[in-house]
């Protein structure tokens, strides 16, 4: 499933341009070290982290997009880093569990 398709289904607020990428799966974590060790390339990361190191970890493992839950939004400098890294950043008022549920309902397994 394409990243934009998921964003539309979940009504996510896009904070950066959305690259034309397939989502290979979802990884939910707030720990940078966990993302580095366990997330897979093409995964959509669901987190509440807005620190630049979360973006750095996502870039290292080739995450295609980050859904920042619970209404949080990264600072402008982090968004600029994401644009450069071609990683889409979305924001949603939903919590991580609600995002996970909606992703499952959208067909992501």
């Amino acid at each position, binding site marked *: *499933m394409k990243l934009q398709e998921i964003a539309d289904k979940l009504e996510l607020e896009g904070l950066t341009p959305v690259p034309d*990428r*397939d*989502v*290979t*799966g979802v990884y939910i974590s*707030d*720990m*940078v*070290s*966990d993302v*580095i*060790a366990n997330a*897979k*390339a*093409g995964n959509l990361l669901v987190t*509440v*982290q807005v*620190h*630049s*190191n*979360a*973006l*750095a*970890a996502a*870039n*290292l*493992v*080739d995450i295609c997009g980050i859904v920042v839950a619970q209404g949080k939004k990264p600072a402008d400098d982090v968004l600029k*880093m994401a644009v*450069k*890294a*071609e990683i889409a950043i979305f924001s949603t008022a939903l919590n991580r569990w609600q995002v996970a549920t909606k992703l499952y309902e959208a067909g*992501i*397994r």
Partner: protein
Amino acid sequence: MVNDTTRPRYELTDVEPGYVIIEREMYSHAARSYFSAEPVPPKEPYREGARVWSFWEMAQSFRFAVRDNHTGETVRFDEMLGLLYYGCCDKDSELYRIGELAHENRISIYVAVTYEAPDGGRLEMPLDKLVVLNKAFNERLRTRDKKILILPDSFGLYKELSYGQIMLDFGLTAMEEKVRSA
């Protein structure tokens, strides 16, 4: 969903969660760090000759090895404190400028920051280990033309960077910027 059934050549293995413990010497205020895999991170002060080291800060992290599935060889990276992304550095720094140049060629620069050595310097990461580390992370990529380049700390970054700039987990949700020197 895409199911990738191809076994990668390089795999992160022996992933051991733990803590990066940062301690400070009572009189000189020197700081140093080490990895602890203890379930409860040690916080008691202790004496080392004339020096007294006290717990200062900790971050969740992990240590790992990389296994080459073709040769069966496993390389451990116990000396690595963490990776530093060029984009998290000061925009006036040499690393940032090099990182920007590399980025134009779709190369993302990271620096492998190692733990402090007993003499106050840094542990060295041999080049052949960095080669393995680079292969492991680049093999995981799917984006066409994207490359990761993990460099040794030839910049002497450890003298000026803060632990918060390194990809460590200071607190689960806050991850506030740290201003303390590594």
